[in-house]
């Protein structure tokens, strides 16, 4: 169940990592609100075209831009072209992320780099690349997808947790730096959400995890999308620098 926010209609919002999981639900929810969803894709033109069509069918406008969040040059070029020639972007969801579970003692430097580069540096660079545009746009809202793991830590996820915790410090700084320009920046920390990432867990592991969750179930991507819509809308206009857990009570 996702509330309708009238100000999201025609709002131009970039969602990174919209191909699947939480990002896809967010893109679809925004399209259903009539927003103009901008998404990035890395190379698969056919998949990008299919996503564009799906978003348009959901009721929104959609534009796919070809760039990887770790490629600053390509990203800046694509975003500059879009914001100059099409429209300023007034919403950003930094959602692209990767995870690789490894014990600290087996964690390789290149694995740390790839996780930090995508999850933390990628989000920072997209936000940076759009910051001039944000000064021209109105009612800008940025939503950064962290993780409950960024708050509570998790065995085998040292690098992932570090990248997600880093996003929180980054978001609070952006919130302070741009508040005078009415640019807001908030963070969502999802807990266990039903996605391909968690589908890969075996049944027993899922049961074990569910036992630790007071609401005794995994969350849905739609529930995260619902909060994201709220944070992008003026309905949350007095919130910035906030970190919101959505974890069924896991980290109380």
């Amino acid at each position, binding site marked *: 169940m996702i509330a309708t926010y009238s100000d999201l209609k025609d709002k131009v919002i970039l969602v990174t990592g919209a191909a699947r999981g939480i990002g896809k639900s967010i893109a679809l929810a925004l399209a259903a609100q009539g927003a103009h969803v901008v998404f990035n894709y890395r190379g698969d033109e056919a998949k990008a075209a299919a996503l564009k069509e799906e978003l348009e069918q959901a009721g929104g406008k959609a534009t796919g831009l070809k760039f990887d969040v770790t490629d600053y040059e390509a990203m800046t070029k694509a975003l500059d072209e879009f914001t100059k020639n099409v429209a300023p972007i007034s919403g950003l969801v930094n959602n692209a992320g990767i995870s690789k579970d490894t014990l600290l003692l087996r964690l390789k430097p290149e694995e740390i780099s790839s996780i930090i580069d995508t999850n933390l540096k990628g989000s920072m660079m997209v936000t940076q690349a759009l910051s*001039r545009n944000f*000064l*021209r746009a109105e009612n800008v809202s940025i939503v950064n997808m962290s993780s409950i793991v960024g708050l509570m830590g998790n065995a085998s996820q040292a690098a992932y947790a570090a990248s997600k915790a880093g996003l929180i410090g980054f978001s609070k700084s952006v919130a302070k730096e*741009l508040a*005078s*320009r009415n640019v807001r920046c908030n963070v969502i920390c999802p807990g266990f959400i039903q996605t391909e990432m968690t589908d890969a867990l075996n049944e027993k592991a899922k049961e074990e995890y569910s036992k630790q969750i007071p609401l005794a179930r995994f969350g849905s991507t739609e529930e995260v999308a619902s909060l994201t819509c709220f944070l992008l809308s003026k309905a949350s206009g007095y919130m910035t620098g906030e970190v919101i857990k959505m974890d069924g009570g896991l980290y109380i």
Partner: protein
Amino acid sequence: MELQEKVIKLVAEATKMDAANISLNTSFVDDLNLDSLDMVELMMKMEDTFGVEIPEDETENLKSIGDVVTYIKTKSH
């Protein structure tokens, strides 16, 4: 209107100051109390108005109204 007047008018509007109190010697930081974000925004307005590009690292050298007028003059020729 001369370039100098146009720049002063734009700065006066952006900072809500009286144009009569702004001259070529007026400093953005010392006299107008602009912070770095104000400067970026002001330079973006200059870019839009005068059709020149003012790169980020150039902004640091533009300390007074006169500096900006000179910069725009050299770039628009």
